[in-house]
């Protein structure tokens, strides 16, 4: 921008030239819900258009065909739909786990590790106790130990935070790596067959510790359990005294102190809950879905969950939709890279563009952009 000398001493500078800011960013009042959803819908639409252009430029494929494939391949068969629902349930479960912590403004980015440790506890029970105790008891033991393991993994950073005010973001993050290393150690200990570097399917013959299936649907049990947790979490956050305390601590620790809420107690209690649900996610992944454990069992859900939770503004019911969106994008993007033989990175590009627009749309919901009109000449 051209700088102009507007010194008081030089009247020549009174020229018409002005450096007027062209746009203004102004905070909006609250938008009615239908308007904000309209903005979000527009964002998705805009994302699809931009992705289409990018697709054409980079690959020369017809973008409409690409989108069609994306939708079609996700829903074309019963198996695929079940797959989608199962992925949705697992991501939703981890998202529900991190939500109370985030609502409390406790940055728990250690869900990945908490899920893994829960899964490791499950696997340990299956391997060490499989066939030695009745199957129903084994499942009970698996459940209890996975919940405990997840809760303990989550409460360690919470205790340090409460006692010494350590940074929970770094702490929970580091606990992920410890969890991953522990899993890789035990994979070596229990590897089958020796030298393969993996555990393989646990108790494949006797199916000890495998969760029963509801009817003939492999994933239905998981989906039901997660649905129950979703409703329970919604009620817990909105209608329980604990949920209220979490909200107060999250909004203002000073207010919490002022009305006599023990902030430390709430932090510890909430992280126990957060970790426990992560433990359940681990239990379902190992005991009900994969029947094995690897270092990638959690599959990055601990991090994606944060996005699910924030996009839904910590509302467990909205989180069903946001996790669907993320799962669909991920699956769909993978599908198109297979079908059109594109580089795997291409699907990441598409996912990135769409998420960028959706998250960016929140800006337009909270702020308004004004283009400055020319000066109104004062009537003289």
């Amino acid at each position, binding site marked *: 921008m051209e700088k102009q000398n507007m010194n008081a001493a030089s009247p020549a500078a009174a020229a018409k030239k002005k450096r007027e800011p062209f746009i203004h960013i102004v905070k909006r009042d609250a938008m009615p819900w239908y308007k904000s959803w309209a903005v979000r819908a527009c964002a998705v639409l805009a994302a699809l258009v931009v992705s289409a252009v990018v697709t054409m430029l980079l690959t020369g494929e017809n973008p409409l065909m690409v989108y069609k494939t994306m939708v079609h391949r996700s829903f074309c068969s019963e198996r695929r739909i079940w797959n989608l629902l199962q992925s949705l349930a697992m991501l939703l479960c981890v998202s529900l786990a991190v939500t109370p912590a985030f609502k409390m403004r406790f940055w728990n980015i250690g869900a990945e590790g908490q899920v893994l440790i829960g899964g490791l506890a499950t696997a340990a029970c299956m391997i060490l106790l499989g066939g030695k105790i009745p199957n129903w008891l084994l499942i009970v033991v698996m459940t209890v130990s996975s919940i405990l393991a997840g809760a303990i993994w989550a409460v360690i950073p919470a205790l340090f935070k409460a006692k010494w005010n350590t940074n929970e973001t770094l702490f929970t993050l580091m606990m992920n790596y410890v969890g991953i290393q522990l899993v890789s150690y035990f994979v070596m200990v229990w590897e089958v067959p020796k030298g393969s570097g993996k555990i393989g399917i646990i108790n494949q013959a006797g199916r000890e510790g495998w969760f029963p299936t509801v009817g003939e649907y492999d994933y239905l049990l998981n989906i039901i359990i997660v649905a129950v947790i979703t409703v329970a979490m919604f009620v817990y956050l909105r209608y329980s005294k604990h949920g*209220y305390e979490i909200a107060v601590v999250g909004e203002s620790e000073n207010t919490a102190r002022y009305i006599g809420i023990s902030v430390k107690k709430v932090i510890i209690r909430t992280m126990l809950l957060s970790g426990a649900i992560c433990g359940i996610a681990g239990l379902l992944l190992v005991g009900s879905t994969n029947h094995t454990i690897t270092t990638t069992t959690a599959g990055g859900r601990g991090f994606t969950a944060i996005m699910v939770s924030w996009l839904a503004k910590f509302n467990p019911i909205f989180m069903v939709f946001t996790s669907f969106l993320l799962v669909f994008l991920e699956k769909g993007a993978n599908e198109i890279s297979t079908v059109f033989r594109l580089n795997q990175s291409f699907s990441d590009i598409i996912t990135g563009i769409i998420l960028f627009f959706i998250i960016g749309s929140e800006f337009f919901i909270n702020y308004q952009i004004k283009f400055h009109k020319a000066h109104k000449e004062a009537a003289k």
Partner: protein
Amino acid sequence: MEENIAIELKGVSKSFGHVVANKDVNLQVRRGEILAVLGENGSGKTTLMNMISGIYYPDEGQIFVDGREVVISSPKDAFRYGIGMIHQHFKLVDIFSAAENIILGIKDKEGFSMKRSVAKVREITERYGFVMDPEKKVYEMSVSEKQTVEIIKALYRGADILILDEPTAVLTPQEIDRLFDVLRRMRDDGKAIIIITHKLHEVLSISDRVSVLRKGEYIGTVNTAGTDESSLTEMMVGKKISLNIERGEPEFPRDRLVVEKVNCISHEGTKLLDNVSFSARSGEILGIAGIAGSGQRELLEAIAGLQHIESGKILYNNPKTGKADDLRDKTPLQIRDLGVRLSFVPEDRLGMGLVGNMDIIDNMMLRSYRKGHTVFLERKQPKDLAETIIHDLDVVTPGATTPVRRLSGGNVQKVLVGREIAAAPTVLMAAYPVRGLDINSSYAIYNLLNQQKKSGVAVIFVGEDLDVLLELCDRIMVLSSGKVTGVVDARKATKEQIGLMMTGAGVEEAEEKAKKEA
């Protein structure tokens, strides 16, 4: 006259969302004049000044400096036109000296020389009669010294249009006098000065002309010499209102809260409260005066169980049991379990007293959510309470489910005070309860406090406006750097006396000195 106009605003408007902060405002400031911009809180004074100093950009309208239209889109532009603004919140680097702060960010064409800069600072201080040591570090300074640094900073950069945003809010009466002397000297030197305030007597004593804003609109400009308090109030509020606070005699005052030799030390080891002793009586309003940060907050928080104290006693005489309980180092919950009905309106309303993002009902629940044996919340009673408060205290809100941060300052305070009073307290502590409130809301709050006093509550009122303290309270305790310098009878004490006590003088010493000065 025309060429004398330093800065002129024509039809300036600015809105934030639906909130119109300024609408079609016209303003003229001449050189060699002090213009007071008067208006209630929320009338758009600060927004207007921020547009002159380049922090906001007007939606509409024109600004002229020396008769030429200018575009001020950043504070840098403002400086180029010789406009300097002294904000309410100082923007200084604590570990730097005064001189270092003053020259910070200035590109000196002749190269950097601390010596020359200090000399120039000295020259400015002498010229206008400032009292300031350029070598002193900011963290060692009092509020008034920091303000002086801010003013010199603006002058050093060549400002000849000075804007001061509520400069007196944090000063003692003596410091205000000194500031006004300096401002007069600057005026006589030909500078144009705009001073923002909502205190009428200050307007009358310092300004040459007054421009009044009401709800963002420009009402008019009058010559100070030809006006008085009541007509200015009328311009400001839009109707005639009486500014008298009814003060009844305390009935059967009894010591309700007795604080004995309380000491409190900060993390850094400095004394926040130094041997503080006093008593608050039922049916009486005890005022607490002092320069900001003299231990008021710590004292109230110590009583409320939010601040650890090193030594001393905080005794509560329970009117029901007749026993005296020590509240020292008890948590707020333990205090309530003792049957102590202590209500506290903290200074930080939305950061401590209320939760901004929660609606009025959920904010009512802060005090009562533990009731009942279920794990679930009971929202019926808080809802009723919210509706009662909205109705009884005339809270302007779309409804009980509106987040409190959307309410205006006065309504936020009504919600908070209403909740605290609803608990039927025996002790009510209020820290700066009218800060940022318009006149009508302020008087509504004073009335509420007076009603509580009438019903036998021991009221503790921490205030900053000495005129109000003298009119509202029965006794006034003065704090200075964590020490009690004395307790005076509010019906007899003078503002000058309290002002001197705020800086550490004892009761008698201050009385004598105040008399001598008068």
